[in-house]
């Protein structure tokens, strides 16, 4: 039973990370109808920036927030420069451009930082924490905490600020938004910036667990896809819940279903995506999309 609880909690920790990346995907998808295949690589790149800062002697939390600012600016620039010219192009074009971005970020990271794995520090103490008779890693609990704080901040931002409201409006009805004086293009760019920030948090939380290397987010991205698909690509809250569920499922399946173990982890995500897409394409919390002909 203790193993079970431990697996659930560490599942929630990684699930929170999947959920964050899924949330970043959903934010961009809702605003622009783009599934950002480069989301994982953006997070990876942000984490390298944090690593550079920390290695230069910047204290952890300064590096953390500095990275968030840099990521935000980077995300805004990517949207303005790379995505904007193809905003209204066919899906295939946008997918290809995102894949191009993925490849560039991945290889530039490899170019600058090499493909050798690097340890990445955790801001939380290395000693385990006892809750009752069950032992938890401090980093696991800390990652859950950080993820929840990020989500709460984002929720408050979208729910209570004028800018957040304007961003939701721009995603929903660009024409009306312009008539209200909202600069829709910039709202989309800010959306990319925020998504880049959320991804950066996820990257910095996961790097102490998986080590930092240019390919570290590939597996996480597929789980984030599974999370967003499960929760529904139209539901930000759903993406997070989906992430938590997927994280827990992943851990429990890995522990208890022996023929899968950890060797077929990615296949579990693939199967999950296919099952959800075939049986409930809108996900658990999403709206069915209506298409005009």
């Amino acid at each position, binding site marked *: 039973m203790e193993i079970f609880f431990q697996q659930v909690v560490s599942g929630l920790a990684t699930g929170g990370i999947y959920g964050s990346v899924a949330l970043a995907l959903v934010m961009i998808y809702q605003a622009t109808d783009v599934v950002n295949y480069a989301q994982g690589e953006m997070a990876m790149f942000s984490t390298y920036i944090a690593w550079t800062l920390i290695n230069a002697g910047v204290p952890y939390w300064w590096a953390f927030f500095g990275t968030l600012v840099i990521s935000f600016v980077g995300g805004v620039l990517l949207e303005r420069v790379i995505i904007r010219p193809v905003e209204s192009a066919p899906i295939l074009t946008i997918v290809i451009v995102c894949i191009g971005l993925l490849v560039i970020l991945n290889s530039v990271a490899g170019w600058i930082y090499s493909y050798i794995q690097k340890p990445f520090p955790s801001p939380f103490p290395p000693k385990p924490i006892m809750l009752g008779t069950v032992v938890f890693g401090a980093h696991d609990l800390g990652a859950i905490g950080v993820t929840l704080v990020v989500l709460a901040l984002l929720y408050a931002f979208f729910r209570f600020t004028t800018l957040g*409201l304007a961003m939701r409006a721009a995603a929903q009805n660009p024409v009306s938004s312009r008539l209200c004086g909202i600069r829709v293009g910039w709202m989309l760019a800010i959306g990319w910036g925020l998504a880049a920030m959320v991804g950066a948090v996820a990257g910095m939380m996961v790097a102490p667990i998986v080590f930092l290397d240019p390919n570290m987010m590939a597996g996480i991205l597929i789980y984030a896809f599974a999370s967003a698909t499960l929760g529904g690509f139209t539901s930000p809250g759903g993406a997070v819940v989906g992430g938590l569920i997927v994280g827990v499922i992943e851990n429990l399946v890995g522990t208890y279903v022996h023929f899968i173990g950890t060797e077929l982890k990615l296949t579990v995500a693939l199967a999950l995506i296919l099952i959800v897409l075939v049986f409930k394409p809108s996900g658990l919390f999403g709206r069915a999309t209506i298409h005009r002909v």
Partner: protein
Amino acid sequence: MALLEARGLQAQYGWTKVLHGIDFAVEEGGITTILGANGAGKTTTLRAVCGMVRTAGEIRFAGQRINGRATEDLVRLGIGHAPEGRGTFVNLTVEENLRLGAYARRGGGSVAQDLERVYGYFPVLAERKKQAGGTLSGGEQQMLAVARALMLRPRLLLLDEPSLGLAPLVVREILRIVRTINREERVSVLLVEQNAAVALGLADRAYLMETGRVVMSGPASELRQNDAIRRAYLGY
């Protein structure tokens, strides 16, 4: 002095020219209506005013030339637009819809006060303020569109066929409120309508458009007396 004035205004979608050089004006504090059947170019005229189509010719607002300026900037000059189809943010609440109207507002004062002000004009919106915009009836959504435009504290209010698809009683109610706003807040109004009876009752100046051209213009009272207009648009 005219608040809004168009001279030789042309507009086109792609290669198709829709407005072939029209002249019209809205006086400061006045209500101007543009009448015409479907496809006459009324909605395009409003879009031209807010920079949503490519134009040639000249449009002046409060003395400045505004051709080619971005919609978002024109809103900041004080041009509020209740668009064709009402433009409701269907998944946002009524109150959020209204707050968006105040997004680009000039001047000080709290948004809360303005909300009270428009709720005063449209009490039904106050009752529905927590409801999603998409759940409102057609008439309520039209009120929401006007109220959203009012949140801007506009100098000029553009109304695109507010009567479309609504019961006569609702139309009368909405236009009564428009008149009140015009008188009490000195908001100038440019109203495009197919329903000539209600529009001529409200406006002080009127234009009649056919296929992208102004074919008749004058004080609303004169057009109301015109035999051709009576036969074609008023039906008596």
